[in-house]
């Protein structure tokens, strides 16, 4: 059955008609053409489709679109400012934490959620936080280092 839902997407209110059985990932990629959110496995295992639901990272491939009625979603398209990258994006690039880039949107959003909750995570906490986001290119080392350096920056500030 089709129904119209209203939610906040990257700061703007959106009204979309969706099917009951459509996932948030399908709606983002296919209805709204926001292809920055990636479909890696469609089984909730790889984290490439991570978006923030009211600030918390979720797998959009496991979330039915009808469930986000009245709630707030942030996708990778909402992370950077008009003029500049978000510090997480900037640091990921500077520290070499991006290779093929397919996991990057999800990894960036998971990092944003982690740092919002815990401004100075330990290495173990970082590894735990991104353990649901698979990266085959980097061996995670430069991603962990990038997040560590962001934590240090926040500490200085």
């Amino acid at each position, binding site marked *: 059955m089709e129904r119209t839902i209203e939610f906040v997407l990257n700061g703007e209110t959106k009204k979309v008609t969706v099917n009951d059985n459509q996932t948030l990932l399908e709606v983002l990629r296919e209805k709204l053409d926001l292809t920055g959110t990636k479909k890696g496995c469609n089984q909730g295992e790889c984290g490439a489709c991570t978006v923030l639901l009211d600030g918390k990272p979720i797998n959009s491939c496991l979330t039915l679109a009808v469930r986000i009625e009245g709630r707030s979603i942030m996708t990778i398209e909402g992370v950077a400012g008009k003029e500049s990258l978000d510090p997480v994006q900037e640091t990921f690039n500077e520290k*070499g934490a991006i290779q093929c880039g397919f996991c990057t949107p999800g990894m960036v959003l998971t990092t944003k959620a982690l740092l919002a909750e815990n401004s100075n995570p330990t290495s173990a906490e970082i*590894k735990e936080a991104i353990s649901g986001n698979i990266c085959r290119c980097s061996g995670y080392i430069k991603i*962990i280092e990038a997040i560590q350096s962001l934590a240090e920056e926040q500490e200085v500030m």
Partner: protein
Amino acid sequence: MAAYKYIGKDIPRVDGPVKATGKAVYTVDVKLPGMLYGKFLRSPHPHARILKIDTAKAEKFPGVHDVLTGQDLHDVRYAFVDTPRYPADEQPLAVDKVRYIGDEVAVVVADSEAIAEKALMLIEVEYEILPAVFTAEKAMEPDAPVIHDEQVKGKSFWEDWGVAQGKKGRATKYDDTPKVNNLSGRTFVSFGDVEQGFLKSDYIREDSFSLKATAHCQMEPHAAVASYDHVTQKLNVWLSTMGVFLKRYFLSKTLNIPPSKIRVHHTYVGGAFGGKIDLFPYEFCAAYLSIKLGRPVKIELDREEVFMTTRQRHPLTVNIKSGVKKNGKILAQDIKVIADNGGYRGSGPVVIFLCHGFSFPIYDVPNYRYEGFSIYTNNSIRGPQRGHGAPQIRFSIDSHIDLIARDLGLDPVQMMLKNVRHEGDVLPNGDRLDSCGLTEGLHGAANAIGWNTKRNQSKNGSKNERLKRGVGISLCAMFSGAMYYPFASAAIVKLHDDGSATLFTGAQDIGQGSYTTLSQVLAEELGVDLQDIHVVAGDTELCPIDLGSFLSATALVTGNAVKLAAADAKRQLLECALEILEVDSIEKLDTESKKIFLKKDPQKSITFSQAIQASVFKRNGDPIVGKGSYKGYPRTDRYPSLAKAKGLFTGAYGFAAQAAEVEIDTLTGEVRLVKAVTYHDCGYPLNKNIVEGQLHGCVSMGAGQTLSEEVFLENGQMFNPSFLSYRLPLSLDTPESVEGLVNTIEPSGPFGAKEVGEGAVAGILGAIANAVHDAIGVRIKELPITPEKILRALGKI
């Protein structure tokens, strides 16, 4: 050492921002107006004859536009290996038989994937189930079911390029091939006198090793979009691939349309690792259906299909016998390799050739014999995967060397040092090691892991009875490109009014950072800043030919082409500046930051803009375009013989020494990689940050395949086609990592650079296995080293 402005600098990736913001377009993101979606019906049987297919109901299903079966495409054949000796054995849809679970039987194209999937269930297939075989050893037996009994005339796309070997490309006689069943390829090579070598040896040891199939796990699933324009008769395709020109050639051959009528468009590639270079049925069918229906067609595989029906790494058994002197010098080595390439040949004959190619550059063995078999079974198809044979052969050889050193009471590092090759060595096939950092790498890796203090620590009275630590070391080698289609890379540098440059390269950035390193080469050679470079890449229409991002060709081969194109543009700029700057030789001029200046008086200068303007006015409108090209291996015109391992292989070998420290929980059998060390000789590193990224990825993949990764197959059925059950490394598995660079200068490389992206996946396997032996005194010869195998070896279960 030369002072460079861009080369060797940790410059962030040029494609970082577009990827970090989600704006990078991958093939899976391509959506065209009026696009249709394809889905495959796949064989549920490992080996069966197709008696009848009824597609009538599926064709009538609302929203379905077409259904194809093998009968529609019965004359189409292709394969990764397509030579007179090894004629192509794949077809886009099974014609007479299915040969593995997942083999494509029919394709439905519909308004949506959901409709296509529903229609698939309406196709009725009648099979006659045939006896199947699931291990290479069983498949070789005389009474084993024969998987390929079709007769196919030998042909080769390489012949079109006038480089065929033997008598006008016909398969040469090869009578010494042993008669075994289901043989898909054989490599045999020997030098010296192996039997004499064994006779002169003080000690002989023989070991067998085996490795399971593993998966690439590219994060972006395999996908293709095709859109045929009937007006211009042009086929436009978007493919997640490592080599746009090779794919274009495959499509041209199979669709029987000229290469110039096919355009492979650029997309970013969400990981490849070797698994996106073969032509796949989904690519051919998307293109064929788009031509037939006049509509764009997209086929995207789901994760299960990626695991089961694209490519896997070859499961391999390796038998090695070595004869050595008491002091550890290897006198003779006899190696036998059997690879299971699954239901189709895939890269079987290549992997058995490369196991030799990555064996013989490391140790100087005077008497050597190598025989490799690739064998058909009814398992999933195996193809290239990062290192392509190197992990399997390096694990086996260096586990074996470690065992011999233990037997003789020698330090394995000392034994390796005694046998490694050196700069200046000429390999038995004629390849020259103009750079070789094996010795320095071994010293570096041994030091960094704490070899002398940490080795034998459990024997020397470990404090912890339950947790045991050990260290191990291994070596690896990798090509830097080779001679395969299109046999060269070329590059074009176009200058703009403002003096900035656009680089046109057919190379594809698959995540390894080639757009960045190639930009650095261009910036350094031409004398422009990095922000003044724009890269147009991976597009067969806009860009000149390129070997593609496999066999680690990009840094050396494409890098040289870019450097020459930049030098060509620079020379033209300088010639235009002669008159304006009133000098008589371009030798007196140099460039930096889009300026041309006198070497003696840098204040006296003009801008690139001025020189370009002068060129347009005085040289009949010439806006200055630089071009450069470089052969896959300038010393030869031929591809090496896969069967006889004759001919030159590669212009430069990358080397690495890798060490590991492990901790083993003797109660649970779990092995934790504590520390991984890689000393890579990649020549002069173009970008250290990117080099480190490559090494980290290699180590992670190698460690995964040593400790946890395994495609579980039972009667041809994969039991773990998901990230939950296929255990690849997660962030929690990340070890402490040390990367040391052995800075050699490769004379043939651009600014001294050579391979870096593949070799280091291979040494970590043996390093870990040797470290496990050091920690608990048992040898695991079958990867992966699971807790169960540890506990069994310790006699606890």
